[in-house]
C-alpha cells in the first residue's frame, strides 16, 4: 500500500476533458479516443493537419463508412494527419461552454481551430444546425467571409454537397463526389500553396481558395454569384472568378480495387449504431428508382471482385475482432458474386460465432435465399422496401417490384421460418392517389394472408406474424427525376397515413397513439414535420442559410433526433428571415426553373432526368443499364468512369454515351 498515491490517480494526462466532466456526462466513452487503430501522429512531423468531423454524436458518426475511408486514406499519407471530431451531446456542449473548452480532435486533443482543414461529412440535411454548432464550439467564424488566413479551411463533402447552398456561406469549399482521390489532391494543392506561404497567417485566403479551386470536383461557393427573380426563384448563377469551373463535376473513383477496404478501421470502445465490421462490395446503383438521390450521385456501378471481398473480410475480422461483418453497398443483392461469396464466408467464419449481414434486401426470393444462408438458425426480422403500395405507383417510381415478387419473397421467408417482417413505404409520391395509399394496407393484408397459408413445414414458426409498416413522407431531392415535384404538406401526409390506418382497421387517428382494437400490424410513422424541413433544406438556395443560422441561434440542435427537433424554433426562424418553407417544400417547379444546384453536376445530364420524369408520368419503366443497354444518363461520358462488373461475363462492360 505504499504506492497509494500513484495507483490512486491512474494518470491520463492526454485527456482533454476534465475528469469530473466525464463523470457527469452521459456516455463519456464518446469523448475518449484510445480506441484500437486510432492513428496518433506527432503534429510537428506532418505538413497538413486534417480534422474530419461528423456533425452528430460519436455513435452515429463512427457508423459512417465514408468518414472511415477518408481517415484511412489521409493517414496513409506521410505528410498528413487526420483526426476525428464529433458533435458533443447536449450535456457535453453545456459543460464545454461553461468551461470555455474549445472543440478538440479526439486523437490529439488539439483544438480544431489549429488544424489546416476541417472536413465536414454532410450526409443528412437535419444535421445542418450541428454543423454551425461545431464551428462555433471550435471558435471558427461561422461565415467563411469572416475567416482569417490562419483559420482552418472548412470543406464539406457527402451527398448533401450536391446542393450545399443552404450551407454555402459557412463553408470555404465543398468536394463533390467520392473523396478518396479528391482529398489527396486537396492536400497536394495546399502543400504547394504553403511552399510560397510558409506561415499559415501568410497571404490572402482568396489566393489559397483559387489554388484549391483548380482541383477537379472542388466547389468554392464564394466564387459564384446567385441572383434571384422577383418571385423568388433563381435567375442566374454565374462564376465570378476565372478559376471557378462551370459546372463543377463530381469526382469518381474509376476502379475501387485501387482503394481496398481498410483492414484495420478504428474499433470503437462504446457501442455504435452499426457496431460491426463493414466491407464495401460495390459502389453505385443503376436500378433507377426515380425518387432516389443515391442512385444518381453514385453512378456508375463499380463492383469489387468476390476474391477481393473474401480476403478483405478475413483481414478486417482478424484486425478488429468484430463478431459481425456487413457487406455494404446501396443494394448488395445486386452485387454479382454475392451468392457464392456469402456461401464462402459462412463456411469460413460461422463456427467461430461470426455473423454476416446485408444492409438491405431486395424484394424477391433470391434475396430471401441469401438471407437464409446467413440467418440459418437465428431468424431476426426481414425488411423489404416496396416503397409504394400499388403496381401503378411502383411503375411511376421505376421500382420494378411486382406484387407477386413481394408475396413470393415473404412466402419463401415464412416457409423458411421467419415471422417478423418490416415493409418500407413512402406516402406523397408524385401522382399518388388515395387508391394508391390504400393499396399499402391491402398489401399488408395480402402478406398476412400468405402468413396464414404458410403451411406446416417443420421450419415454419408457430408464433403470430409480427408485421410492421414503416411510412415515410416522400422528400423530393436534387439531381433526381422528381426534383421538380412538390412535397405534400405535413397535414396531407398525416391524412394519407390515416387512410392506411383506417384501411387496416386500426382505430387510431393519424399520428395518434390511441389504443387499437387489433394491433396486428404495427405502423411506424416518421415525423412529417422533419420530412418537411428535410425537403426545404434539400432543395434550398443560399437565402435558406439565414434560416439555418437563425434556428441555430434559437437553440436548434440535433434536428434529426425526434426528442430534440423543435418545429416551433424553425417556424420562428423562417418567419424572422421572411422565407416561406412551402416555397421550397411544396411548390412544383416549372420546366425552365434554374435550380440552386444548377452549377453542380453529378455527371448525370438534366435531359436524362427530364426524360425519366416524363416516363414516370407515363408509367414507363427504364431498365438497369448493368444488365440491359445504356439508358443514356450521361455519367460515363462526363466523368470518364464506366460500369465495372466483377466475376461474370462482361466484366469491364463499358457505359453508354455512344461507346
Amino acid at each position, binding site marked *: 500500500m505504499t504506492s497509494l498515491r500513484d495507483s490512486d490517480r491512474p494518470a491520463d494526462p*492526454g485527456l482533454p476533458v476534465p475528469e469530473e466532466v466525464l463523470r457527469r456526462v452521459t456516455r463519456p466513452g464518446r469523448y475518449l479516443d484510445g480506441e484500437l487503430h486510432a492513428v496518433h501522429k506527432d503534429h510537428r512531423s506532418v505538413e497538413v493537419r486534417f480534422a474530419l468531423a461528423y456533425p452528430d454524436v460519436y455513435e452515429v458518426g463512427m457508423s459512417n463508412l465514408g468518414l472511415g475511408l477518408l481517415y484511412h486514406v489521409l493517414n496513409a499519407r506521410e505528410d498528413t494527419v487526420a483526426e476525428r471530431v464529433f458533435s458533443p451531446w447536449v450535456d457535453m456542449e453545456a459543460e464545454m461552454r461553461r468551461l470555455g473548452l474549445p472543440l478538440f480532435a479526439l486523437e490529439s486533443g488539439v483544438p480544431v481551430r489549429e488544424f489546416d482543414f476541417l472536413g465536414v461529412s454532410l450526409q443528412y440535411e437535419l444535421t445542418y444546425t450541428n454543423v454551425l454548432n461545431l464551428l462555433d464550439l471550435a471558435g471558427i467564424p461561422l461565415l467563411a467571409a469572416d475567416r482569417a488566413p490562419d483559420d482552418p479551411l472548412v470543406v464539406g463533402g457527402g451527398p448533401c454537397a450536391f446542393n450545399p447552398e443552404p450551407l454555402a456561406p459557412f463553408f470555404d469549399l465543398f468536394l463533390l463526389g467520392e473523396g478518396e482521390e479528391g482529398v489527396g489532391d486537396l492536400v497536394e494543392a495546399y502543400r504547394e500553396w504553403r511552399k510560397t506561404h510558409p506561415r499559415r497567417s501568410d497571404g490572402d485566403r482568396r489566393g489559397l481558395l483559387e489554388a484549391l479551386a483548380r482541383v477537379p470536383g472542388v466547389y468554392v461557393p464564394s466564387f459564384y454569384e446567385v441572383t434571384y427573380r422577383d418571385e423568388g426563384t433563381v435567375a442566374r448563377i454565374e462564376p465570378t472568378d476565372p478559376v471557378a469551373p462551370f459546372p463543377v463535376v463530381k469526382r469518381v473513383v474509376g476502379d475501387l480495387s485501387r482503394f481496398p477496404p481498410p483492414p484495420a478501421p478504428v474499433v470503437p470502445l462504446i457501442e455504435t449504431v452499426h457496431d460491426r465490421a463493414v466491407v464495401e462490395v460495390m459502389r453505385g446503383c443503376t436500378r433507377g428508382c426515380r425518387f432516389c438521390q443515391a442512385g444518381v450521385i453514385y453512378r456508375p456501378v463499380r463492383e469489387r471482385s468476390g476474391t477481393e471481398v473474401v480476403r478483405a473480410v478475413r483481414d478486417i475480422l482478424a484486425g478488429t475482432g468484430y463478431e459481425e461483418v456487413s457487406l455494404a453497398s446501396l443494394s448488395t443483392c445486386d452485387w454479382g458474386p454475392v451468392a457464392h461469396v456469402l456461401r464462402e464466408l459462412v463456411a469460413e467464419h460461422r463456427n467461430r460465432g461470426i455473423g454476416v449481414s446485408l444492409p438491405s434486401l431486395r424484394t424477391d426470393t433470391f434475396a430471401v435465399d441469401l438471407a437464409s444462408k446467413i440467418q440459418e438458425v437465428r431468424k431476426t426480422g426481414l425488411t423489404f422496401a416496396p416503397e409504394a403500395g400499388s403496381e401503378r405507383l411502383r411503375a411511376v417510381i421505376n421500382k420494378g417490384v411486382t406484387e407477386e415478387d413481394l408475396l413470393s419473397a415473404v412466402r419463401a421467408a415464412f416457409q423458411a421460418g421467419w415471422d417478423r417482417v418490416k415493409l418500407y413505404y413512402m406516402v406523397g409520391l408524385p401522382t399518388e392517389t388515395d387508391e394508391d395509399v390504400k393499396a399499402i394496407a391491402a398489401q399488408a393484408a395480402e402478406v398476412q394472408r400468405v402468413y396464414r397459408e404458410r403451411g406446416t413445414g417443420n421450419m415454419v414458426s408457430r408464433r403470430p406474424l409480427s408485421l410492421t409498416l414503416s411510412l415515410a413522407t416522400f422528400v423530393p431531392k436534387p439531381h433526381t427525376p422528381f426534383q421538380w415535384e412538390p412535397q405534400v404538406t405535413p397535414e396531407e401526409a398525416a391524412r394519407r397515413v390515416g387512410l392506411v390506418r383506417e384501411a387496416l382497421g386500426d382505430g387510431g387517428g393519424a399520428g395518434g397513439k390511441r389504443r387499437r382494437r387489433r394491433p396486428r400490424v404495427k405502423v411506424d410513422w416518421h415525423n412529417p414535420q422533419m420530412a418537411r424541413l428535410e425537403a426545404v433544406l434539400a432543395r434550398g438556395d443560399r437565402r435558406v442559410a439565414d434560416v439555418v443560422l437563425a434556428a441555430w441561434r434559437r437553440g436548434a440542435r440535433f434536428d434529426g433526433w425526434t426528442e430534440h427537433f423543435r418545429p416551433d424554433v424553425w417556424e420562428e426562424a423562417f418567419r424572422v428571415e421572411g422565407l416561406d418553407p412551402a416555397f421550397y417544400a411544396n411548390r412544383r417547379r416549372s420546366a425552365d426553373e434554374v435550380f440552386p444546384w444548377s452549377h453542380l453536376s453529378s455527371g448525370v445530364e438534366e435531359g436524362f432526368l427530364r426524360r425519366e420524369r416524363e416516363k414516370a408520368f407515363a408509367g414507363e419503366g427504364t431498365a438497369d443499364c448493368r444488365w440491359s443497354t445504356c439508358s443514356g444518363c450521361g455519367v460515363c461520358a462526363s466523368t470518364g468512369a464506366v460500369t465495372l462488373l466483377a466475376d461474370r461475363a462482361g466484366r469491364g462492360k463499358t457505359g453508354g454515351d455512344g461507346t
Partner: protein
Amino acid sequence: MTAGSPVHGSPRWRLRVCFSKTGRLRFISHLDFIRAFERAVRRAGLPVSMSEGFSPAPRIAYGWPLPVGMAGLGEYLDMELERRVSPEEVARRLNRALPEGLTVHDARYVTPHGPSLMSELDTGTYLVRVSAGGRSLGEWREAAARLLGRDRLEVTRERGAAGDGTVKGKVVDVRPLVRRVEAREVAGDEVVLYMELALTGHGVGRPEEVAALLWRELGLDPGAGPRRVSAVRLGLR
C-alpha cells in the same frame, strides 16, 4: 483454488484472469468493456469455448461490474478454453490485443467445478480520495470508528426517474455492506479513505455513499461535499 482439469465429457479449461481497467478505459461501461474484451479475445486468436444455441457467444464469466469512471486494479474474469494454453501465453497474447487501459496481470487455471466468480469474490477493496472538509486525520479516523459502531446506516438511493420526471428515492440500510473503513492520510484538503465493501446479490456497497456518511458523521454540510477527487477499486476478494 486447485489447478484446472478438463470437465468430464467435454474437455474444458477454466482460466481465471486478473486484470486492470485504468486510464480512459475507466469511462466505458461494463457492457462496453465486455465487448472490447471479447473482441480482443478474438483478435488474440485464443481457443475460447463457445456457448451453444442460436447465437454462440464466448464462454466468459465476468466479475462485479466496476462503476463507470472508477479504475480497477485487480479485477477478475473466468474464461473457458477448449484446450490448454499456458497462462503466460494467454496473458501475453491478450495484452498484445487489448486496448490501452486494459492489462492482464495474471492468469491461472482453476477447477471448472468450483463456485462462480461472483460468489467467490464478495468483497471489493477501495481507495477513495475526497475533500477533507478542513478536518484532520484524527477527526476522520474517529468518524470512521463511530460509523462502524452504528447499527444502521441509512442512505437514499435513486430508483430512476418516474414517469412524471421526478426521481424517486428508496431508503436503504447499508450497514451490512460496510466491512471496513479507514482514513489513511490527509494531505492538503484531501483525505484518503480505504474501504472494504460487500459485493453480493443482496447489495453492493458504494464507496461514495460511505464517504458521504463519514462527511455527515463529521457534521459537515452535505450540500458542500464530499467532493470526489478519485476512486479506485484495488481488488476483489
